[in-house]
Every structure is written in C-alpha cells, then in structure tokens.
C-alpha cells in the first residue's frame, strides 16, 4: 500500500512538471491590484526590474497620463508608450473623453508578464492596452471593468486580420474568472481595471496611486506602415556560374498572371 501511494504521488508530481509554467494556478482575476504580478515575480524568471513597454491608446480626442510622484504626467493625446515594472500597479488618468465633457476616469494597469522581443525592437512590440469609447461609457455609468490582455497562441490564432484601432476581446460572465479564461486562450501579460474609483478627500495619496511606481517614457511609434511597392523580379542569367543554375531572362520570368498561374 505504501509503495502504491508513493508511485501515485510520483506520477502526480511528474504530471505537474509537464504543465506549462505560464498558467496561474493559485491566482484569480478578482484579486486586489498587484497581487498577481507580485506572485509572478516569485517564479524565478527575469521579471524583476524589467520595464516592459506598454502602449496605451484612448479614443481620439481623449488624453492619457500616468501617475508620477503624487501627481500625473503631462497628458498625451490618443496614445503613449510607457515602460512599466512587472508586479507594480500604475494609475492612469484619462481626460477629454468624447461625449463626457468634464469627466475623468482613473483606470489602472498591472503588468504581470513580459515579452522577449529582439534587443533593438523593444518599443516596436509593446503590450497594447486599448480603451474603447464603450468601456468609458460603461465606467462612467457605474460599471467596473476588468480586462486581461494575453499573447495569442499562434497555432490557435483566429484566422482574421488584426484591427489596429480596436483590440479584440472576449466577454465573460460576471461570475467567471477572467484570469483563468485568459489562461485558456493564451499567456496573460497585463490586467486593466477601470471604474468606480476617484480620488478621495485626501487627494492623490499613495494608496490611490499605488505608490506611483517609476516608469519609463518612450516615443510612440505609428501603426503598421503602408505596404511598400512590390517591384518586379529580375532574375537574369548569372555570368559567373551559369553552369550551376539556368535562370530565365527578365522578360521570360512568368508571373502569377501568366503561365505560372
């Protein structure tokens, strides 16, 4: 009996080791801001001290700023890129919301994982956090929103083009765990929370700003450039090694509209 118990325990441990390490086993989406990111720092990966670029987009006409030293940074129109520490919670302020003059919204962003882009492409591939007009309408009507942004699994990706103006999302029921749903679809990297929170009578204190952790400002890059013109392919006979490959002259190269179709 003891041997059987040991074998069962060993088998269970083996199965656990084979699991993907990115899944949040002991966290859930309704935890207080900062707890999920702090738990990620204990996993031993190079997350401590890394400023992950995050691209924040708001509808045209609105401006966004990030908490900095018991205040907010100068507002930036439409979009900005900020390098945020993993595990920290950043309070934002969105002003100039269309259809809601004079109102302000104070969402938060918590980065819980990082990307590993090429060394010279850090800012080109930030984590996108896009706020839609509908989400501002919901927040200003008294709703509370939690949105988990995740990296899509390329093998199970939806075969549809990405709209750079609107981030794709799936809605879950209020009683569902939003973090677990994101775990099933990909690798969660950031959590956005918005609604129902304004500065109290004490103003912008550390509790409201979550200590105003440091962040790095990056220049915002425009969206995908327009496609470059596709020139003609000119494959000519090589004069040095013409015996190795016989390529047709330019005029004889078939295109898709010709005999190669």
């Amino acid at each position, binding site marked *: 009996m003891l041997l059987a*118990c040991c074998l069962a325990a060993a088998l269970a441990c083996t199965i656990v080791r084979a699991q993907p390490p990115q899944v949040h086993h002991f966290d859930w989406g309704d935890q207080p801001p900062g707890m999920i990111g702090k738990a990620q720092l204990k996993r031993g990966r190079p997350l401590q001290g890394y400023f992950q670029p995050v691209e924040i987009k708001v509808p045209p006409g609105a401006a966004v700023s990030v908490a900095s030293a018991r205040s907010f940074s100068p507002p930036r129109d439409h979009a900005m890129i900020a390098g945020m520490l993993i595990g920290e919670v950043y309070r934002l302020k969105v002003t100039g919301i269309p259809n809601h003059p004079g109102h302000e919204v104070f969402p938060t962003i918590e980065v819980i994982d990082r990307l590993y882009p090429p060394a010279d492409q850090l800012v080109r591939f930030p984590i996108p956090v896009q706020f839609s007009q509908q989400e501002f309408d919901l927040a200003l009507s008294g*709703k509370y929103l939690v949105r988990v942004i995740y990296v899509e699994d*390329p093998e199970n990706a939806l075969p549809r083009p990405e709209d750079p103006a609107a981030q794709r999302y799936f809605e879950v029921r209020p009683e569902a765990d*939003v973090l677990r749903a994101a775990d099933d679809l990909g690798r969660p990297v950031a959590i956005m929370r918005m609604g129902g929170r304004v500065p109290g009578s004490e103003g912008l204190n550390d509790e409201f700003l979550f200590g105003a952790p440091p962040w790095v400002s990056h220049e915002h890059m425009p969206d995908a450039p327009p496609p470059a013109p596709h020139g003609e392919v000119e494959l000519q006979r090589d004069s040095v090694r013409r015996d190795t*490959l016989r390529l047709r002259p330019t005029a004889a190269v078939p295109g898709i509209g010709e005999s190669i179709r």
Partner: protein
Amino acid sequence: MIVAHPTRLPRFLLLAGLTIVLCSCRGLTPGPQRMVAQQQPFPPPMQANSTHAPPIRQVTPQVVLASAVEAAPQRVAIRPQHGATSSHIVQNCPHCNPRIPCLVTVDPDEPWAPSGTDGRWPHDEYLYDGGDRNLEARVRADWSVVGLDMEDTVGHFDTVEGETRVTASNRVCIYAPRFASVRKVVSMAGHEQHIFATGVDSPEKLILHEDTQIATTSIQRHAPRGQRVARPAGIFRERLRTVGMENVRKPSGYTGDLLPYENFQVIRHGQFDQSEKARLAERTEAAVAWTHDLAVQVLLSGQTPLIDTHDLGPQQVYTFQRMPGRPELRVVKIASVANARPGEFVEFTLRFDNVGDEVIGNVTLIDNLTPRLEYVPESAECSLSGDFFSQVNEGSSLVLRWEIHDPLQPGDGGIIRFRCKVR
C-alpha cells in the same frame, strides 16, 4: 517487507489522497510540441522505367491536410536541444530538416530562456513557417500528399527509378506577437466589495505606527543616510572631451537582380559560401550549410567528395567512392524580415536545387501557411515554368503549391517568391 499498522492505514490513505489532490492541477493536456510523427506507409513506387527517362507527371495531385489523416499509431521524436556555447554542434536541430545535419551556433547574447527549452522562446511570440513538423509528409500513389501540417514547407520529386521522395525545407522564425483580451463587466456592488477587501489590510499599518512612535531613535538614523547620496556633479563634463564622430551611411535603395534580403550565394548560385553562414543562419534559423574551421576541412571535387581531416600534427585522408544514382532535392527558405507587426508584409523566398547526381522530375513545392499569414493574391513568382495552385487549409489560410514542368538536371534549381500579410 513493510507492513502498515492497521490503525495507521487510514492515515496513510488520507496522506496519499491529499498528496494527489494537491499535486494535481489543471492543464494536464500535453503541449502540442509532443504530438509527433504519424507513420504513414510509403506509397507504392511508380512503374519502374528501365530506360532512365525523366519522369513525367501523370495526375494533378491533391493535398490531404494532416487533420484529415486517419488515426494511426504515433511515435515520439526526441530531438536534442541547442547547445549552450557558440561552438556547440547540434545534430537534428528542431528548426531544421531532421535528415540534414545542423550546425546551428547559439548566440550567447540571445534572450533568456528557461532550461530544457528547445529553439525560440517563448513560442507564442513567434510565427513559424517551413520544415516538416509533427506528421511526416508523404506522397501517396495517387499523388496526393498526406501528413502536411500547418506551417510545413516541403518539396517532392520523382526519381528515374520511379520513387517519389519528400524533402522538407528549413524553418523560418519571425517575431510577431499578437494580442487579444478577455473582459468582464460587473456592477458597482461588486466593485465596492473589492475595495473593502483592500481596506481590511489597513489595520496592519496602525500596528506599525505604534511601533515607530516608541522607537524615536530611528528618526536619527535616517538623517545621515540622506547626506550620503549628495555628490557634486562636475566630473562628468571632463569625460565629454573624448567624444568621437561617426558618419553612418546606409543604402537608400537597391537595384539588382535579386532582392536585398536574398543576397546570398545559396540563393544566387545554389551553393553555400562559408563566409555567409552567419547571415544565412540569421535568416533561415537553420544550418544546411557546411562548416569550415581550422581543424576540419571538407572538399568536394566533381562527383566524388574528398574529406580531408587533419589536426595540427598527423594527417589522415579518407576517400569515399559514392555510388551513382543519388537523387536529392534541397529546399532553402528565407524571409525578408525577422520581425513583423500585424498588418505588415513578409516576403518569402524558396530556393530549390537538384543537389543529387541524376535528373529528377515532377518537382513540386508545397507551403502550408500558418493561420496568421495571409497570402497576397497574385504575388507568387517562379523562375521556372510551372503551375501554381492554392487550397484552403484547416487554419483558414492557404496551401500553396508549385508544380515545375521540366525535369531538373543535376545542379539545376529555381527560385520561388511569394508575399504574405501578417494577420
């Protein structure tokens, strides 16, 4: 022999049950990388041609996607991982054709990856195209292709003996993460409850506050610490004297036979140049090229390769006489960029060569695009005469297929280009 005491038996069972429950978590399904290699029987050889005439295409084949293949016993392919040093030689790299020895050199400055991880990491931030992963692609007697998985790029040809062989290309990696989100909207009551839960932790601050009032001497400790960091800032100006000037010039355009990213000897002439190995490995993430270092030299002379292995002291010469009749097709795939955002375009180039010593026919190149690559219509080009077909695959992308008309003589080859948009 260990015998559990009757009174302790329930305790053992309880402990074992708790161990299993605590250790078992969700996500028990194995990763998709472990699903490998379904064995399909070789198609019966075509009718033997005793005159050794170039084979002629008989039937326009049809691609049977991997998901449509009937269930069969699977085998697990265990491939070695990349080495930890730049001089480590790896056989059967997961990015390359498993039948071709790989000489991938690992960059010591590449991003961190957890131990036990093979290839690029994390996998969900890269797009892959090329190679022959999971099910091994094979050609049936009716010219249909089975075992063609998503992202696969293979070529098949017929030999003069009537045998149909399949060759996989190398695997191309493009950094192109895509994001989505899961949203939950709750009413205000839920939010207030959430804030109250945060406030429950605040009594800890009151306890800490009482302690600091008792220990008044701690205030004096903080004062000198603030003085240590004050430093004059006049030294840095003197270091600016040795600032040099650089004049960086970049080419604004390119006019020539091939596209800029195709400027390799293997693309131009079909032969590898050792001096371009590093750049080629950057584009293909493969190592189909041979290596040449100070210790080992490999020389090819005509039909008989001469391998000369020598050290600093004694030398040994090995000569191999290769039997005639060795048909082989090599497929090299490169991409125009190494990273792309959604909406950007990527151009792929396939260079295929008859590197054997006899003529091959019915050369067919197949590329099964991943769901996030959208083929740009009318962008396929080929340097040889042939037919181009496309078919929708299970990922709502396309399977691209080129059928070359004329047989390829030894040393001959061609180039295929096509364009894709990153979804």
